[in-house]
């Protein structure tokens, strides 16, 4: 059946409009406009319509919604949300954030190539850059990368350009293992070396003595993450930065921005580049994206010239009368520089940056501290309670929001616990024994403002029951 009714998303699909346009062009039918496609590859209408695309026919909005609804009913919703982190955390999203990024002028805009008609969007992005800079205490923030992992990868490639000739990057074993895979992917074509700094088996922190023995004049950068993948506050972060700088290597830090409510910002640790995941700032987890890659540097022209991504700057109109915004340092970008660009990034996560701007504005000067304290108390409450049911934290060093729990001593497999928790309507932590075989049956549990003490009590009770039933 050929659909001939006018389509709501195609204004020219009425008989009248169609005829008018064909007449002006001087052709009898639309298909004439495709006569330069070689016959060997030109698809017949029937041939195309027989392909499995959608349900094989156009649907009304009502029908489409019904179909998707039926599928989404198969997803299982957890309340409280999974006690899971590992780089992505269930956080509360204030409705204001969604409301602002739903506004069509932001939502349906393109990259602001025409400055004068896009000032509001550019100001919002400038304010994202500026508020993020305050949170990180870094000077320059770009208008976003895809996610934390690709930000690290870009930071590493940037370090090789800034420290030209050096061929080695030191990455800690206690960083997110998925992030590490992304860095490996980005670096591999350039034949550069990544080496892993071991972690202290008892504390869970970076092994600083090992780092000292690994760093040399071939090292372009040292990366650390704090809190690290085990949720632990790297208390030697400043010293690690100093060790890097002594060898003229760049110091790159990765952060979970919510933690900066109570942890020292990268700027104060003298980081050259700070990266991180902005998902916690008003974005959903969305099964992996869209998230928000944070990328920041200190004010240093050698770094600026090699920085990836889009940056909005404050300026004035030509007559000097008004403040205005424009894209700056575009000579680094792909649309100008082509194969000599600092990165190929073009479409980034601008709308997510606007969302984060709204979120940061809502929390303001004191909100981050309050939020971080709340999360700290809840995570530590949970840590204290697990000892009552015969479980223990794996590492001794101070943590922030998440920590690995060992099930080895209880003699229970992670998978058994996971199944039993599901029966209780709870989704437990993330199994990390696969990434760290030396840890055995170990899972990383995370806590946020969405995990009340009541929810934590429910978790502990369920865990305790499982341990009593199946543990040794």
């Amino acid at each position: 059946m050929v659909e001939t009714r006018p389509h709501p998303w195609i204004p020219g699909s009425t008989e009248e409009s169609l005829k008018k346009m064909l007449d002006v062009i001087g052709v009898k039918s639309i298909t004439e406009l495709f006569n330069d496609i070689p016959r060997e590859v030109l698809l017949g209408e029937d041939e195309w319509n027989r392909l499995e695309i959608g349900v094989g026919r156009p649907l009304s909005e009502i029908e489409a919604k019904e179909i998707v609804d039926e599928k989404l009913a198969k997803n299982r919703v957890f309340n409280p949300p999974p006690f899971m982190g590992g780089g992505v955390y269930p956080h509360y999203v204030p409705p204001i954030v969604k409301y602002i990024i739903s506004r069509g002028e932001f939502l349906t805009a393109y990259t602001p190539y025409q400055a004068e008609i896009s000032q509001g969007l550019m100001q919002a992005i400038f304010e994202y850059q500026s508020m993020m800079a305050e949170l990180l205490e870094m000077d320059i923030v770009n208008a976003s990368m895809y996610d934390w992992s690709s930000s690290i990868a870009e930071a590493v490639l940037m370090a090789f350009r800034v420290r030209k000739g050096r061929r080695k990057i030191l990455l800690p074993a206690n960083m997110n293992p998925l992030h590490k895979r992304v860095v490996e992917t980005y670096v591999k074509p350039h034949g550069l070396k990544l080496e892993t700094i071991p972690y202290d088996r008892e504390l869970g922190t970076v092994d600083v003595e090992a780092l000292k023995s690994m760093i040399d004049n071939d090292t372009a950068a040292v990366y650390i993450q704090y809190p690290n993948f085990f949720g632990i506050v790297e208390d030697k972060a400043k010293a690690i930065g100093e060790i890097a700088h002594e060898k003229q290597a760049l110091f790159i830090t990765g952060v979970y921005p919510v933690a900066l409510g109570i942890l020292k910002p990268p700027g104060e640790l003298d980081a050259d580049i700070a990266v991180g995941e902005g998902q916690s700032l008003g974005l959903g987890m969305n099964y992996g994206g869209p998230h928000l890659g944070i990328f920041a540097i200190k004010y240093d022209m050698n770094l600026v010239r090699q920085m990836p991504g889009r940056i909005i700057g404050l300026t004035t109109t030509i007559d000097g009368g008004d403040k205005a915004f424009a894209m700056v340092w575009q000579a680094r970008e792909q649309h100008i520089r082509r194969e000599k660009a600092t990165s190929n990034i073009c479409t980034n996560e601008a709308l997510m940056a606007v969302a984060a701007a709204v979120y940061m504005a809502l929390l303001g000067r004191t909100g981050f501290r309050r939020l971080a304290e709340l999360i700290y108390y809840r995570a530590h409450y949970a840590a204290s309670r697990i000892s009552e049911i015969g479980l223990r934290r794996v590492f001794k060093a101070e943590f922030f929001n998440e920590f690995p729990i060992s099930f080895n001593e209880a003699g229970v497999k992670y998978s058994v616990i996971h199944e039993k928790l599901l029966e209780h309507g709870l989704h437990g932590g993330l199994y990390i024994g696969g990434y760290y075989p030396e840890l055995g049956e170990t899972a990383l549990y995370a806590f946020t403002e969405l995990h009340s003490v009541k929810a934590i009590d429910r978790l502990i009770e369920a865990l305790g029951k499982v341990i009593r039933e199946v543990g040794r």
Partner: protein
Amino acid sequence: MNRFRQARNWEPLIFELGSKGRIGFLVPEPEDVAKKRVGSIDIPPEMKRTRDPELPELSEVEVVRHFTNLSQASYGVDNGPVPLGSCTMKYNPRIAWEIAGDPRIVNLHPLQDERTVQGLLEILYELQKWLANITGMDTCILHPAAGAHGELAGVLTIRRYHEVKNQLDKKTDIIIPDSAHGTNPASAAMAGFRVIEIPSAEDGNIDMEALKSVVGESTAGLMITNPSTLGLFEEHILEIAELLHKHDAIIYYDGANLNGIMGYARPGDMGFDIAHLNIHKTFGAPHGGGGPGAGPICIKDRVVDSEKNIMLSDLAPGYRVVYDESTGLYRVKGPGEYSAGLLKAFFGNITPLIWGYVYILSMGPQGLRRVTEHAVLITNYFMKLMENVKGYNIPYGRGRFRKHEVVLSAQPMTDEVGVTAEDVAKGLLDAGFYAPTIYFPLIVKEALMTEFTETETPENVEKYAERLKEISKIAYSNPSEPKTWPRNTSVGRVDVLKANHPKHVTPTWRVHVRRMRGEIQ
């Protein structure tokens, strides 16, 4: 003509608003039982933040007003036509926004048990299949977060192909036409290849002689769009594919311009091995002011190693959804042994992907073909309206129909009276239109690359053409006037030189403050 005037509210910077002590969001107090048990917060002193970040302090209503005012000084498809060539700025149907915002999607952790996300995985699995059918490929991977990210995925796959075949040392070059998007050469360079540029011929096709002269032993692959950025279908595509394959090179399809041929021709049938798609272009997801996007890559499954049974798609980076018949479950397969790896930590950009799913579901094959027909129709309608208008010409491909876009040039106007493509763009803004892509493709001087898409009304296209004619008239009668444009936007012409001047450049409020204090010169 439209009497357009954009909001001009001189909204202060957020740092200039609010008042000490105000708060826009209440964080719950920690429960007493937790406080009692935990005691004081015990962060090692060397890692404890000593001062709160210098963020503005605003009440909720002030935050809402501020960003609402900013939105009014912005412009998207919801305001009017955005004919940015190659960016494909079509209307974004809101039914998809509503579905993508469903809490049953938004609140899913990417590492949670697969059995608890079966509905989402089923959707993604179907999307993979539909995109494969649309492109004529065998496998689609939804991992890349944007078109350029998809390109990187594609060129890394090309790299792996030659690596697995043990010929990477000699396969050093990627060939790219001079009309290509800047992301193509940038992506090829990120994958460690040398970029060889080839010229376009007068008819808009690739210069075949030039191509033949550079294809050889060292050719790892070729990246092209089809239709090209000139809006022209590459007529020699089959010959090109044959030539490249003869030298064991991979042909990469940049899907930025798929909107011009969807339903009429498929990259897989044209001989392409790998294609990326832009969900935020062809499949109706919004651009969000520059993202999020989604750039799936689709792959034709040629054999790479018959002994080890390695197919080309096994080399692609990222996760894919597979259906396990034995359990009846959808599963996420991580990058396998031969894969190029991971390009982001987790799955893909779900929001635009869901948007694309709803769009394709709603359209069906008939609707998608109709999209292309009307995108092409309105482009040629516009071209006809712009034929023989003083000050403009339409270089390359004389007499040929355009597909999704048409590149005008304002070069005659620039040469004769000094009014440039940029001036023309500002004149369009003044009439309430967004401007076309200017100064691209690089091979057209004073380029005005225009793409309306099927979702623009013919009436707006007529008004747009009228305005271009009016601009021409003004340019020839009073060539200094266009330099004073725009006048009806939130601000007048922006000082971009000052924005970039080393003594002034201000990328954050922090730099502004440090400059005021004399800490940065």
